[in-house]
């Protein structure tokens, strides 16, 4: 797809699909109906045991509109995101499969997209992927045949033009994925992040889940730049949220590349009598703040190692019950 064609496609109703909707995604329906969307995240285990995935899917399915399945996050080998997505689907959830460009070339990515679509997965988030030196196989070779923006473009062309990346036509049954990407408002160069987001939108991204927001001021600045570019009208932006159990957890996140955690926030949680309760309070306030920011269409809750807290946060934020969509 050309950049121009992609911009057009991203801004208007996508061709094909079932009537008003391009895909079978619940998230697409929730967003297009104008609801403030809630998505959650499940990190698959470092084993072949599916129980936790199913348990978290049960926990999240009623309180979120889609559940991300991470793809070997931080480059640690885990049960694959496609199989995890199938477990979530079977448990009654609406999986959002993540796919990084780190471990697969364009052949494997397209094959996995076809496979995922054949298993009833309707959402895909295209990512560059954390560098393998973070993980448990630092000696691995990385792939990066294509980048996340090119992946977005590729999957949109597969869906809307029934074309493989090589240009060859798909004979039938194109994968109908609702296509997402990530953006980090806290990465640098800050003034270029929005311009790069515009490239993702031009490539065909339909929704964006941001890196977790702790620094609300910077996020507000980012969203203002998003609106100035008119991007909030072209893509659904879900603000990332990570509830923190403790000040220690926040301190750790402060050291993660690409994250910005204000010292005042750490001080606030550290000073609370009940740090966990304070963490919930912060999360709820954050969601309320997101809802006030023009252009933010939902929240993506990444409750790493604290999945059980999600229903309480969603409820306290006044986001229950989740809308019913056809």
């Amino acid at each position, binding site marked *: 797809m050309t*950049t121009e064609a*992609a911009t057009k496609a991203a801004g208007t109703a996508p061709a094909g699909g079932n009537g008003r909707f391009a895909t079978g995604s619940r998230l697409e329906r929730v967003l297009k109906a104008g609801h403030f969307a809630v998505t959650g995240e499940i990190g698959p285990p470092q084993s072949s045991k599916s129980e936790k995935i199913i348990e978290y899917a049960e926990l999240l399915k009623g309180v979120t509109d889609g559940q991300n399945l991470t793809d070997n996050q931080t480059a640690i080998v885990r049960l694959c995101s496609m199989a995890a997505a199938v477990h979530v689907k079977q448990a009654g959830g609406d999986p959002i499969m993540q796919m990084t*460009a*780190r471990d697969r070339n*364009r052949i494997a990515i397209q094959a996995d997209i076809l496979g995922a679509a054949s298993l009833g997965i309707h959402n895909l988030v295209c990512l*560059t*992927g*954390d*560098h393998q*030196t*973070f993980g448990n196989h630092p000696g691995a070779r*990385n792939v*990066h*045949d*294509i*980048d*996340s*923006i*090119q992946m977005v*473009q*590729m999957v949109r062309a597969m869906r809307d033009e029934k074309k493989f*990346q090589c240009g060859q036509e798909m004979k039938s049954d194109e994968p109908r994925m609702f296509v997402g990407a*990530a*953006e*980090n408002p*806290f*990465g*640098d*160069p800050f003034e*270029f992040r929005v*311009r*790069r987001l*515009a*490239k993702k939108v*031009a*490539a065909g991204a339909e929704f964006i889940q941001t*890196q977790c927001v702790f620094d609300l001021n910077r996020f507000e600045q980012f969203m203002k730049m998003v609106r100035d570019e008119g991007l909030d009208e072209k893509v659904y932006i879900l603000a990332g949220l990570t509830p923190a159990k403790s000040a220690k957890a926040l301190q750790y996140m402060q050291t993660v*590349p*690409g994250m910005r955690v204000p010292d005042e926030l750490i001080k606030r949680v550290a000073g609370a009598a009940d740090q966990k309760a304070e963490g919930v309070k912060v999360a709820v306030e954050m969601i309320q703040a997101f809802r006030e920011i023009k252009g933010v269409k939902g929240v993506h809750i990444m409750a790493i190692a604290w999945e059980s807290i999600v229903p309480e946060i969603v409820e306290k934020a006044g986001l229950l019950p989740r809308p019913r969509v056809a």
Partner: protein
Amino acid sequence: MIVAEPKPIAEVAELIKAGRHVLVVGCGECVTVCQAGGEKEVEILASALRIQWKIEGLTGTIDTQTLVRQCEPEYVVELAKKAKNADIILSLGCGVGVQFIAEAYSDKWVVPGLNTTFGGGMVKAGLWEERCGFCGDCVLHLTGGICPIIRCSKSILNGPCGGSQDGHCEINKEISCAWQLIYDRLKALGRLKLLDVVQPPKNWRTARDGGPRKFVKLEAMIE
């Protein structure tokens, strides 16, 4: 230029252990410039190995020769006389040199004394940095003369990724984010518009992904 660094001496000693007549071969090109495999390094290494053999009570000869270039057959033939007596040839050339010697002296056991690391240059005395990934399809006109293929840890063409912070790459604060450098340079030159274009997937056939490469210049061929 090709940048290479010496293998640890213990590893080199192990590689030549089975030999009684070792020929250490230097190269007068890139590895002389990066001070890894020129005449000086060849003589120093040979002396060190002789001392080690002496300490260990090993007997034999360690001879030396430095060629103008190891990556050209017309210079490699100059080794013939000394190679005849050697049972192991230790090349301090880059990986190309080692292979040209092995091809020319097919009955000899040829081992590498260097680790060939990258295509780069000296940024200041004693410091060499990688600059070229040899992808076979240069994009430097799109990126302000800064290569994203080799200087971005993820080789992305539409960067920077979300791990770029304060000018550093996510993998290490010692590494500059190539896309920050690209951004800064294009901004300074008033050419940021170049970055608004979604760069399509690269055709990696011109890189090693397409198999071993050849460069043919017909007019330079004698036959």
